[in-house]
């Protein structure tokens, strides 16, 4: 059942569940943040509307900087503005920033300790028809290995809005990962969100779960659907929304591993270096647990519809169910 404490969207299992763009949630959050705090500024590399920053840019043109197609300048100018007390959000497609701007982010934002939020939209395979050049499948890895960098990957539009507002208050630099396509609305305005806190969204009606499914980003809805079908097959699972990849909610992940003794991680990212790797690093040191990784297996993407690609690269509902069954068999 859905965790009743979290006030999740009751229509989540309906065929006509409302869908919205995660990137638009960011845009709404940034607009609200701009209204609350005059130091918030927006910088964008010629993708203002595609990254959802247009709401802010239209309302606060004097606090918006059109950078042109120049991602290295995007993040370094943001660092300079942060040095003078601004709170910069700089957006592009994830493939270009942090993809192209990685060293500049590391040196001038993280090493230099300037609080900037790097916003990477169009992450993952669900970018779709634009093809492999535009599908960022490595950005979580790029950002989480850098010291002094938080990494957030919200599951829906509402959570993206909350994450954006939370990042204005946070003292640290951060990477905010967004996806292109509309995704089902899972949370509500009342659902709690805190940087560094993971929540269990789906749980057995009674008793302990046999497998813990940890998800980040837009695949959460598929994972919850998989969990519901598995329950009908007699397999009890818990589904965790790990939107805060760094800092990792160690207590929550450990508790899930201790309860289930089998974990499946799900993300629209290379298996190497992604959220699943972060979970595996922590568990192998503290509580070695069997893990199956749902993600992209060392491949580049290609053109197609988001659904076709998610299925083809093994991240769909059935792939998640298979991974659960596989890890169940491996359980000691």
């Amino acid at each position, binding site marked *: 059942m859905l965790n009743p404490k979290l006030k999740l969207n009751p229509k989540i299992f309906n065929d006509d569940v409302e869908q919205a763009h995660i990137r638009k949630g960011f845009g709404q959050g940034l607009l609200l943040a701009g209204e609350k705090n005059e130091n918030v500024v927006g910088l964008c590399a010629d993708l203002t509307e595609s990254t959802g920053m247009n709401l802010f840019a239209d309302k606060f043109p004097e606090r918006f900087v059109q950078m042109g197609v120049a991602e290295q300048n995007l993040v*370094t*100018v943001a660092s300079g503005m942060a*040095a*003078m007390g*601004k709170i910069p959000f700089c957006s592009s497609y994830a493939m270009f920033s942090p993809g192209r701007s990685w060293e500049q982010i590391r*040196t*001038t934002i993280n090493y230099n300790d300037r609080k900037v939020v790097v916003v990477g939209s169009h992450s993952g395979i669900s970018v779709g028809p634009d093809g492999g050049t535009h599908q960022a499948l490595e950005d979580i890895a790029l950002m989480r290995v850098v010291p002094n960098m938080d990494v957030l990957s919200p599951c829906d539009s509402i959570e993206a809005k909350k994450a954006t507002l939370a990042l204005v208050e946070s003292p640290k630099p951060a990477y905010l990962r967004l996806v292109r396509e509309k995704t089902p609305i899972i949370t509500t305005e009342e659902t709690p969100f805190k940087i560094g806190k993971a929540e269990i969204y789906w749980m057995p009606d009674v008793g302990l779960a046999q497998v813990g499914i940890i998800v980040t980003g837009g695949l959460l809805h598929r994972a919850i659907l998989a969990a519901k079908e598995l329950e009908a097959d007699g397999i009890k699972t818990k589904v965790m929304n790990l939107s805060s990849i760094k800092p990792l909610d160690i207590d929550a992940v450990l508790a899930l591993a201790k309860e289930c003794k089998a974990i499946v991680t799900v993300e629209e990212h290379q298996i190497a270096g992604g959220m699943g790797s972060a979970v595996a690093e922590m568990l192998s040191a503290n509580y070695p647990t069997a893990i199956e990784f749902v993600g992209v297996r060392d491949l580049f993407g290609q053109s197609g519809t988001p659904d076709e690609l998610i299925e083809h690269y093994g991240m769909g509902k059935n792939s998640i169910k298979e991974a659960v069954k596989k890890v169940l068999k491996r359980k000691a």
Partner: protein
Amino acid sequence: MAFLSEEKIKELAVKANDIRMSIIEMLVEAKSGHTAGPLGMADIFTLFYFHILRHDPKNPSWEERDRVVLSNGHICPVFYATMAHAGYFPVSELKTLRKFGTRLQGHPHREYLPYVENSSGPLGSGLSQAVGMALADRMNKKDNNRFIYCFISDGELDEGNSWEAIMLAGKLKLRNLIVIVDRNNIQIEGVTEEIMPLEPLQSKWRSFNWHVIEVSGHDFGSLNEVVEEAQAIYEKPTVIIAHTIPGKGVSFMERNYKWHGKPPSKEEGEMALKELKNLRF
């Protein structure tokens, strides 16, 4: 900023020479680091820290201070030596350069040495940070109160990031941004015009809508005048292309690119110090 009297110019020349000697001493002790660039920039740093800048070494975080962004962090020996001589920290600390636990990292790090505005080293990103600072000051209506000075090298103009920043500053007409290019014509592997030609450098900057001035990097009077000119330019950012002699002051180092990235040995250091001590002003 004020008129430079002959007396003051002489004072600055003596100070710059002291700073050059400190640079040699610290590099000999560190046994690694860059020599030619720091010696070449000693006059400019001296002029800024002892005449031009609005700053307070006893209160380094004074909010109204001018900002200095060093982009080519590898010339930090001149940065550190000038700051020490200006009173930011003891001159004796210069001997800790590049050693474990030092505040004087091989390339400047703000976390360890809070008197620097930015950590730097990887080339081509300092100017962008200075552009961000100048833009933030304009948004905060402080662009009439102070200047953002950015020191960059000629070699780092090979970097695309540099030109992204130059393009944006021209677009934004950042009058409070003044860039000083250390035009010493060398980079690690040779002379700039062979590795990657930069000329015609003046017209490149001008075509990006900057006010461009060329000047000798060793003439205090002219340097002071062009900074005044830059401050007076209202509708554009200004770049001062300062022609410097790499290794300036030490005859066997001058204009030799092989001194870009290596320190003097103990013997070479003694020879260099002897030369510098015997200079008359």
